[in-house]
């Protein structure tokens, strides 16, 4: 406080000295002595002004000390009045007006939000609803179209029959999209068949030929399995699959995969006895029973041999079958009479 008072006094004194010096000059004397007096008084005033002003200077401007003092003195001394005012204004602007900015050179920004998806997709309905929505023509076409598009994510074997049904829909859009989906699936398989046929033509050696034959048999089978071929074309595809499966078996007669496939093809062609034999042969060569048995059961069912169905299903261990198959077993196979729980020896005492 006292220091500030002293400094203020020094500044007032400096001001008085400066005014007196200027008065000398203003009086208009041309003597050298007067000029000398003015310079001395002005120099003293400048020293005091710089000394007093130094106290009010923001700290960051006080370094390096002596050069800064010299600079200030030069400005005040060589530019009488204006220099002093200039320094005061500059110091005020630099030190006080921009204080905040200078004290915080880095401005704060709000953290950007991490967005995974800009707009959250809304799940509109669960899978079970698709079928019922598709079936009702009263539901707006746009909504049914959404259901139809959802079928793209469902395996062809399940969705193809639904799509086939949609080909006769009253709404043009539904019909055409269903057609487009089926057509693109069919096109994909046909293109693969075409590629494999070329591979087969250029196959060097039995091994390459076997690979191409197996691929072709499976691709033709896929057309049928995925529900993409109907009527005569289905029969045609089955015959083609059979031709290539036979060709593959000519090269590798113990290929269980091909024997299994041939069994299923024969079954679809309604050649039940031959299909049964083929599946048994596949099992003989190492195909696990639990894979072949469901088909053997189906053949027995198609032949009307229900006793065999029951007998064979009972052989399937519940750990190796799908939940859907389990339902069939529950239906066909009588449950063993529920026995009372017996205590083990240790606890029987």
């Amino acid at each position: 406080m006292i220091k500030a008072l002293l400094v203020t006094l020094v500044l007032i004194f400096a001001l008085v000295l400066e005014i007196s010096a200027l008065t000398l000059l203003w009086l208009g004397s041309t003597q050298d002595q007067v000029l000398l007096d003015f310079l001395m008084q002005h120099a003293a005033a400048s020293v005091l002004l710089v000394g007093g002003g130094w106290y009010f200077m923001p700290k960051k401007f006080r370094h390096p000390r002596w050069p800064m003092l010299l600079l200030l003195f030069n400005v005040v001394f060589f530019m009488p009045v204006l220099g002093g005012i200039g320094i005061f204004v500059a110091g005020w602007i630099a030190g006080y007006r921009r204080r905040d900015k200078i004290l915080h050179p880095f401005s704060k920004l709000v953290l950007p939000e991490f967005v995974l998806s800009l707009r959250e997709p809304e799940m509109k309905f669960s899978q079970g609803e698709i079928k019922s929505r598709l079936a009702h023509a009263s539901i707006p076409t746009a909504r049914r179209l959404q259901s139809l598009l959802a079928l793209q994510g469902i395996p062809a074997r399940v969705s193809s029959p639904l799509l086939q049904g949609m080909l006769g829909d009253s709404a043009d859009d539904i019909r055409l999209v269903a057609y487009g989906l089926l057509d693109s699936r069919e096109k994909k398989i046909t293109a693969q068949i075409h590629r494999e046929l070329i591979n087969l033509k250029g196959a060097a050696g039995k091994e390459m030929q076997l690979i191409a034959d197996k691929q072709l048999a499976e691709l033709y089978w896929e057309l049928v399995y995925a529900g993409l071929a109907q009527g005569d074309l289905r029969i045609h595809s089955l015959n083609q699959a059979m031709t290539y499966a036979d060709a593959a078996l000519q090269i590798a007669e113990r290929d269980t995969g091909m024997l299994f496939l041939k069994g299923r093809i024969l079954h679809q062609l309604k050649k039940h006895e031959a299909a049964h034999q083929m599946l048994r042969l596949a099992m003989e060569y190492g195909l696990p029973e639990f894979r072949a048995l469901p088909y053997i059961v189906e053949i027995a069912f198609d032949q009307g041999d229900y006793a065999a169905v029951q007998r064979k299903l009972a052989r399937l261990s519940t750990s190796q079958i799908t939940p859907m198959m389990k339902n069939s077993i529950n239906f066909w196979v009588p449950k063993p009479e529920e026995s009372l729980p017996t205590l083990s020896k240790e606890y029987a005492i």
Partner: protein
Amino acid sequence: MNFPRAESADIGLLLEGTFPYVSGGVSSWVNQIIRGFPHYKFALVFIGSQPEDYGDIKYALPDNVVHLEVHYLNNKQEMPPVRPRKGDTKVFADVRHMHECFRFPATHKDGLETFRKLIPEMHEGGGAGLDTFLYSEESWAFVKEKYQQHCSDPSFVDYFWTVRSMHTPVWMLAEIARNFIPVRAFHTVSTGYAGLLGALLKERTGCPLILSEHGIYTKERKIDLFQAQWVRDNRNVFQRDPTEISYFRQLWIRFFQALGTRCYDSSDHIVALFEANRLRQVEDGAPAERTCNIPNGVNVPRFAALRALRPASPPPVLCLIGRVVPIKDIKTYIRAMRTIVNRMPQAEGWIAGPEDEDPDYVAECRDLVDGLGLNDNVKFLGFQQMTELLPKVGLGVLSSISEGLPLVILEGFAAGVPAVSTDVGSCRQLIYGLDEADRALGAAGCIVGIADPQALAEAALELLGDEAAWRAASEAGIKRVETYYTQERMFDSYRAIYEEALSWQA
């Protein structure tokens, strides 16, 4: 090739991807209309995607075509020079408002009004010029804003370029409209880009606009877009909702819908070929009072002369007349031929139509013929003169997945050839009849579901195998075409529309 040029004409015909570069139903119809009105001078604008997609022109230009200009929307055009600019805030407020309005059917009208306000600004250097769209800060800010508000696809880069490539043709059309020669009325044969050009021309000149839609352009685009492989979808497995199509697909579909409504809004006459399509137009925003149906018609006497050339009993020849393109679903026809040949080994299946439009599809069809062992029975004849072809054919086949009102069925009927067709467009009405009096004429063939080769084969075998049924169908077809689908009826309807449009004075 030198195209005719003129200073002015009577009718400006706006053609997108059709006459004179593509042969097919719509092109034949355009040819028929131009030749049907020889006293009117026509100025044609052809809009295509890119020159590589089209060969030479497929039709001899009628004498009354006095002017033809050809424009390609996907052609690498010269863009305005890149110069940074701010963009006019007021204009962009309108652009913003217009886009907001187009989002909801209830506010569509407002959006169209705003669009109308913007048209005069759509020139280079104008407030809504292409340069402003491509390079201005306002435009960038607007694209960013829309992406943040609505886009459910994570890629901004794809969004940005989709928006750019989608909108650029609009300015090209504005440019075409600005430079077009004076005519007294405009007639567009589809909505889409040609339809928008019609709307822009009407806005500039005030001349009446007539719209004749054979298919429903917006619907066909939509179906294409549902399956198009080129539309990106960058959603990951967590973001993907299987029931929602990708945002860019939605964007394209909405864009074409907006083009459609813009054209419907500007058209003074909206012509459909049959009632189902007219209702669809109304559903898509066409004002019902401006819509009407004018079915296609054929030159009956020209084909009637062919009946005498036919053999006594129906030849076991099926013929599909049409371009070999996916929309005709030629594969279903080929598959049906497998069943037909199984039961009628002497049967032949002809495919008569140009094969240059989609060579991949042609190859797939030929592979299928090969794969089904039908090389001896199925023949690709290429383009054929109908008058030479029809007397040799026993049954016309149409296996298309989408049609309007196919001229080939009518021409077949006129020549006494019944048809089996899929249940698309107006085929049911052509074969079984529309109203009671029409139905009383009898069935001129059979309708089956789409993509059902077995049903197609059964229907064809039934007609070809039963001469009495075949004769009845042939008679019904002849009576139907002579009563309802003559060229004269069609010309009379269009004459009334043209006369009304041309009597308009600014």
